[in-house]
């Protein structure tokens, strides 16, 4: 589903170069649920940005769903984000002026779907996350857990092949965390690939596989470059 080979991403300022990803290689199979862990500054967010085509990289190759997406135009990346990738953020990233229904509608608006089709997808997604009765509520009228469920509904409505979740339970209490993780597991069981960045060992434990990052590289638990870093050695689940 997702394969990166020798990805290098450097942030440059006048004074310093920061190697956020260095010879970063990773393969995630279709239908996998992978947890990405690592300390702050290890490159988790950079990896998610690159994987989600929100940012470019300097060297290496990246295949997504069998397609080489290493050097795409901005419009092409937007199209792939819209059709194939769903994002779940720690801070939910709902648009405060739009109600729940319209927030879920946002990615569909950029897909030129007929209104009836959009409505059906939104209603189904809200039903799946149990928020049908809150369709006309504003985000500010919902709890954190409910807001994250709206964000998940927004992903579900788009029916992506890959979900990238950036600490999806980071702002939630334990009860809500369990609810969201249950929801992600159910989505994964339907065949959607999930790559989740998390600091929580409990959440990571619910993934099929845990990947540790350090200094922009995949490492094993002792901090040595892991076999996972070499795609040719990684098990192919695709």
């Amino acid at each position, binding site marked *: 589903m997702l394969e990166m080979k020798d990805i290098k991403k450097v942030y440059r300022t006048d004074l310093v170069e920061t190697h956020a990803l260095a010879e970063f290689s990773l393969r995630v199979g279709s239908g996998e649920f992978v947890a990405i862990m690592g300390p702050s500054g290890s490159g988790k967010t950079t990896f998610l940005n690159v994987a989600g085509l929100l940012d470019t990289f300097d060297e290496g190759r990246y295949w997504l769903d069998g397609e080489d997406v290493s050097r795409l135009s901005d*419009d092409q990346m937007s199209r792939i984000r819209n059709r194939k990738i769903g994002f779940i953020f720690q801070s939910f990233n709902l648009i405060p002026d739009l109600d729940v229904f319209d927030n879920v509608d946002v990615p569909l608006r950029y897909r030129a779907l007929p209104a009836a089709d959009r409505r059906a997808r939104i209603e189904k997604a809200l039903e799946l996350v149990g928020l049908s009765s809150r369709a006309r509520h504003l985000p500010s009228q919902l709890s954190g857990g409910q807001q994250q469920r709206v964000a998940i509904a927004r992903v579900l409505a788009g029916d992506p092949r890959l979900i990238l979740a950036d600490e999806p339970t980071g702002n939630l209490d334990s009860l809500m965390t369990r609810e969201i993780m249950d929801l992600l597991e159910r989505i994964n069981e339907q065949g959607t690939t999930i790559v989740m960045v998390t600091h929580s060992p409990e959440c990571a434990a619910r993934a099929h596989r845990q990947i540790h990052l350090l200094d922009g590289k995949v490492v094993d638990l002792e901090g040595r470059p892991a076999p996972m870093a070499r795609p040719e050695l990684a098990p192919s689940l695709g």
Partner: protein
Amino acid sequence: MLLYNLRIALLSLKRNWILSAVIVGGIALGIAVSTMFATTRHVFARNPIPQKSDVLYYVRLDSWDPQRPYPGDDPSRPPTQITYRDMVEIMKSDIPLRQSAMFRSNLYVFPDPKVGRPQKTMVRLCFADFFPMFDVPFKYGSGWDKKADAGPEPVVVLSAEENDLLFGGTNSVGKTIRMEDRELRVVGVLDVWRPTVRFYDVTANFFQAPEPIFMPFNFLRPMKLRTFGNSDGWGPSPSIPGFEGRLVGESCWIQMWVELPTREKRQAYEDFLAAYVMEQKKAGRFPRPLNNRVTPVMAWMKEQKVVPQEATAMMIVSLLFLAVCALNLMGLLLGKFLARAPEIGVRRALGARRFDIFVQHVVECELVGLMGGVIGMALALGGLVWMNNWMKTVTQRGDVFRMDAPMAALSVALSLIAGLIAGVYPAWRVCRIAPAVHLKVQ
């Protein structure tokens, strides 16, 4: 998608309504000023009779002094009016479909004592063709016929306002009014006829309304009437003294219009005028080179500078003012849009292209522009009312400045352009925002 973008734009305007009000107000101010001055200029410049302006011609003959040019900024131009004797001769032509010489006078009208006191009233003396030639609308009756021209028969046509004044607005056809020492029968009452510029006589005071009373030209002689318009003359005093002497001299005081429906007719009429002048030259008149003019309505209005240069200058200045308003608002819009960067980041992450973000923000700018435009148009209408009130003190006419459909459309177009000027750069800037940068800070 347009409706969606409009809804997003409305939500954005509501979110920070004070800033939105400042931006809309800025555009409204610019639109009000530019619309007001553009309308002012348009009032002078628009075609007063679009359905016939290409077949109506103003006639001039160069009978002027060979020693000095006719006054004005172009020494090659003939006098703006013609002499009585030339008028009599060229009116004999049967080439024009219609023709009318004319001048205006100022005569005492004696209303019913119960209605009012006698007062001096502007009267236009013209021929029967005047009314059909200029498509003058009638409420009651009609104009007089050519037999009444020849008589002349004691007939008049009243304006709607004069009929209101003298007869309380009733159908006065067949009733009589007394003018100076004569009783004249009303044959027609005009419907409301208020051309902004009195285009059939732009030799003087062309902002004034059409005259309240029209009567046959040929009352000139029996009533010994004098023109109340411009009169230019040269040459020695006529050998005949008094009123008749003025008619045979080189004094130019009559306006002459002809309707020539085809190019051939126009050529034939120009040939006729040339032949007439050449014949007069043999008799010792027309000492200057042949210089007749048969000028269409709009060209004649342009030549007479019906559009004041000041009106054009003020319109240009007001458009620059609108541009300055829009440029000043650019900074406010940029700040407003950049404050929304996290939301833009989310939309980009969810699949919006840069173009989608650009269009979304341009739609918001255009909505701001249109809202400013509507308010600006309302302010401009108020400004035009004020200008009409001022105009009334100068010309006794309070309906000169009106916003018509083309001006309203121009106002809308200016609003959209102002919205674009103010918003294109901010929209372009925000559509370039890298999505990843703002997702963490949302």
